[in-house]
């Protein structure tokens, strides 16, 4: 018996929405993974399209790698300074 592989399953609903991760399953190959995805995750046509991706083929970064980007205020602008300036102009102070 060959070992089954783990696949991650993504569904995209009809329309403009994005593909979303819905879960995982075990299957021997891509074709079987698509069949099982249809039967396990899409029995009531919850998605219009299905992606299956072997878990081993996914590269991932965890919070240790994403954390530095949490701290970059220069990439945001909450508009507060400008709003305050405009308020002062309006109120003539």
């Amino acid at each position, binding site marked *: *018996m060959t070992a089954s592989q783990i696949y991650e399953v993504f569904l995209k609903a009809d329309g403009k929405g994005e593909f979303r991760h819905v*879960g*995982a399953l*075990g299957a021997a190959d891509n074709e079987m993974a698509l069949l*099982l995805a249809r039967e396990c995750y899409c029995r*009531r046509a919850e998605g219009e399209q299905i992606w299956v991706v072997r878990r081993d083929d996914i590269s991932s970064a965890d919070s240790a790698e994403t954390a530095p980007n949490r701290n970059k205020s220069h990439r945001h602008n909450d508009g507060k300074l400008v709003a305050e300036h405009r308020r002062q102009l309006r109120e003539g102070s």
Partner: protein
Amino acid sequence: MRAWADLDEFQEFLDDGGMVEADDDMPEEYRHEVFRFIEFHANSELMGGLTERDWIPHSPGLRLKQIFLAKTQDEIGHAHLLYMVAADMGIKTRDEMMSDLLAGKTRFHNVFHYRAETWADQIAIAFLVDAAAFASQRAVFAKCTYGPYKRILRRIVGEEGFHMRHGEEMLLKMASGSQVQRDLFQAALERWWWPAVQLFGPDSPPDDPLLNWYIKSERNEALRHAYVQKYVPLLQGYGFTVPDDGLRQDPDTGEWMMSEIDWAPLKATFSNAGPDSARRLANAVRNHAESAWFRESIGVSA
């Protein structure tokens, strides 16, 4: 991968609404308890699916055959997804969970330790048991702190909702049918009322870790009480008698109060010593053996 220094820090994380993911370095106590809970749920879906399947050939009429086929697919599908979530916790593989279930080493829901004797039993199961399972799963979904389980529960709870509606529709037909049909359902109700009520389990212990970790959002006794409040009037409204001589309504609050529950039947199911446990397990073992050729042909195990 996230890690926590100790259980207190982990508890703080959960109290703040934190969600645990499969690759987190979660405390071993949490990993084991949550794994056991999901494994139990997966086993129950599989054993439930097998009994639904057994009734497909006996379904009266094409529409009900289709419904029971769909229910069987749903339940087996739920088992498939839950075993996947459980296996990802890294305690047992799917194969190990399957062989432990078939060897009688692990548990499944009490209601699958009883024999469904007539078609009316299937209706009682769909109406009473699916509803009890639905209430208890919805309460787990509500706050569930284990992300992969919560996401799968959303799907499961949605599908169980269809089963409940099928159950009540079937009950409506029995209730508005002949006296023979009404008697048939009343007899089934007498077999299934207590197992359904006991599905929620005995009162939760005061320091139940599953409650502290927000796997369960409500105590067993609270869920059971709410269930009784809803289902006693429903059954009476359809003209059936709840098989509890001590059942009474509190004159002040209007709440339904049951007799003292005899927990011995529930405890027997914990050790697979229920009235139908041996036959059900043998059935599952046979099913697993008979489908081995299929798993081999597609190159997958379990």
